């Protein structure tokens, strides 16, 4: 043989007990931070509402060629909504109702807001055909209601709900994505005067500036699919969840050999509750939280991507699925385990804006169904004399 062997075959081992901790944790991004506002009416399965706060409305306007004067009339008031048209479900017309959801209740109380979607708080309704659901939607609301808030200086807080004989679902771009809802209205019938433009704004909670800034628009979940059974690992859904894995990998593999591939083997559980054939992109991330962070929920927020690639799942599928983690092991090779726990976090790319959730068996399930880590490696070859 002209070429004597140098590199050996790649060895592969499957570590059944490598996963020492796996748990589902909340995505701490929290209410209001979602990049999209989900408006859904999926019967008994899913019902979400959209809240938009205009706590600061102008009380004066400047007519063309004139000086500022108080607003005494409102005309052509509408909220401009940017629609993610790829998120639209349902081909039938959908009616979007608007409610006055102004309340002094706790700002993060979903129940308090949902209770305000009642007839005496009804503002207006507008029906859209599927063809009318373009990427920019004009949702007209009562001029009188807007004028009342302008004149009285009170907040205009709009709650949107989708209704109709059949299911409907769409996603609006939120303020967090720099293309959120905007309120337009005219303070005079004179069309030579430009309409007033009002961006969402929240005055409460007064003692939390960050929360105040994200609550300018947010999604409220009125009804969500039945939760997974305890002990099931869940990625995605509303509210958004992640899966946190912590591994114990023999140092002989990480330190003494050269890992060429690492795969997390998961047993996916079929979730037929909502859009089982839709795709959910999941991205594996390496936990960067040090050993001082013992709470998996907090540790699952300090992450960096393993790679740019995502893994596509369908909620309704079941069986063994693979998540590639080779890059994570490359990072771990350079950092001792007592400094950086070997943690992987799975999160949905559309975290917080998609109700779909992917479910996996956990280490509490039967041995054959538990998460496993498969590692392929080569031994270091002596590079010396021929």
């Amino acid at each position, binding site marked *: 043989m*002209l*070429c004597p062997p*140098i590199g050996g075959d*790649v060895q592969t081992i499957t570590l059944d007990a490598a996963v020492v901790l796996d748990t589902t944790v909340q995505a701490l991004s929290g209410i209001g931070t979602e990049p999209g506002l989900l408006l859904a009416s999926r019967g008994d399965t899913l019902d979400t509402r959209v809240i938009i706060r205009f706590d600061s409305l102008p009380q004066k306007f400047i007519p063309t060629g004139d000086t500022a004067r108080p607003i005494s009339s409102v005309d052509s008031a509408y909220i401009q909504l940017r629609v993610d048209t790829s998120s639209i479900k349902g081909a039938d017309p959908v009616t979007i109702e608007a409610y006055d959801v102004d309340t002094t209740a706790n700002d993060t109380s979903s129940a308090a807001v949902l209770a305000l979607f009642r007839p005496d708080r009804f503002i207006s309704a507008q029906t859209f055909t599927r063809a009318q659901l373009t990427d920019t939607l004009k949702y007209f609301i009562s001029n009188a209601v807007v004028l009342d808030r302008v004149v009285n200086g009170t907040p205009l807080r709009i709650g949107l709900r989708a209704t109709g004989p059949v299911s409907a679902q769409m996603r609006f771009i939120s303020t967090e994505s720099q293309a959120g809802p905007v309120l337009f209205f005219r303070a005079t019938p004179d069309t030579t005067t430009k309409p007033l433009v009002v961006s969402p704004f929240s005055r409460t909670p007064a003692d939390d500036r960050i929360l105040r800034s994200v609550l300018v628009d947010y999604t409220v979940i009125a009804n969500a699919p039945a939760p997974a059974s305890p002990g099931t690992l869940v990625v995605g859904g509303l509210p958004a969840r992640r899966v946190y894995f912590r591994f114990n990998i023999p140092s002989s593999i990480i330190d003494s050999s050269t890992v060429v591939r690492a795969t997390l083997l998961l047993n996916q559980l079929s979730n037929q509750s909502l859009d089982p054939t839709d795709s959910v992109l999941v991205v594996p991330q390496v936990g960067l939280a040090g050993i001082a962070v013992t709470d998996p929920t907090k540790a699952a927020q300090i992450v960096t991507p393993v790679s740019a690639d995502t893994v596509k799942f369908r909620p309704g599928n079941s069986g063994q699925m693979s998540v590639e983690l080779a890059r994570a092991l490359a990072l771990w090779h350079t950092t001792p385990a007592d400094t950086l726990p070997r943690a992987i976090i799975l999160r949905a790319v559309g975290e917080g804006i998609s109700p779909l959730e992917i479910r996996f068996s956990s280490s509490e399930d039967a041995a054959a169904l538990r998460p496993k880590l498969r590692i392929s490696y080569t031994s270091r070859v002596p*590079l010396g*004399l*021929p």
Partner: protein
Amino acid sequence: MRNAFVAATISVVLSASVAGGQGALSTQGLGYPSGGLSARAEGTGGALGDFDALSLTSPASLAAAGSAALYFQYSPEFRKVTAGSGNASTTTARFPVVVGILPMGSSWTAGLSAASFLDRSTETNLTRVQVVGAPTDTVTLTERNRVLGAINDIRLALAWSKSPVVRIGVGAHVFAGSNRITFSQLFPDSSRYISTSQAGRISYAGFAASVGLEVHPSRVIGFAVSGRKGGDLRAESGDTALGRAPLPDHYSASVTYEGIPGAAISARVAHDSWSSLSALSSSGIQAFDGWDAGVGVEAAGPRLLQRIVTVRVGGRSRTLPFGVNGEKVKENTLAAGFGLPLARDRSSFEFALQRASRTAGSDIKERGFILSFGLRVSP
């Protein structure tokens, strides 16, 4: 003497589980012996080596230099390796000889020179199908083995000659150099696999001494003998001693006949005890003692720019140090060349073309064209 650059690639698609490293007959083991011959000597199949002041085979030949000189040589080799139905083309660039000569008085001449002793520079790419992960997960894996560097022979020599009849020389040799080795396993999908790379470096050091005698009993014939006795060659990686082996002894004898006006017919035979280097193999690569025989003619050729161009032709046959699968590697070479005086004979340009054919008793064959460009300058 370092090899400036080597770009040698052999792509061999092999069946699964076959892996490999060095992919040429001539670069097995510790490498290829370029021989320490100048372009002039190479043009005569090495036959003039023992009489050539710019070659390193005999220290006695320094006395024939006549004047101070600096000499540089560049020798790229273009190889083609054929194994069954597959073949690969490779290129190796070498600077095999650098010589400085300084006459001291009327009888003594000193020379400091460096030559490639064993050039291991090569790069091999092997592609194979490998199972990685599940038993059904296969991927095309490329293993790249790159070795750069050589063991070099640095010689300080002194020659004495009171008359054109006898020339005597002695030389002290330092064998030094290194091999930088990089072994990489390259996978195509970086999101799924991690390509790996290992690097290593081997340093070599050893000493030897040589003597040479040249006798010209008449104007038409001359004889030369030379020998080099080696000490131990040590191989180390960092602070770790990898091994040691005696440097191969080298003996040669030559004759030249100048009875034909304007022409010199020469022959040379040499023996190298390469087998002593077997101890420096970690994988059992066998080294063989080998004969090196050459015959050639140097003659005055046509005039070019009022200068006589010297033309040369020769043939050479030798055994390369390291075998393949227990078989010796034979190298047969046909050579031709010319020398062109420049700048009123204060410098000269030497050129040689060698066509080497190497076999090892199997279906693996290697053909190479070695072009040698030498420039001698007398300050």
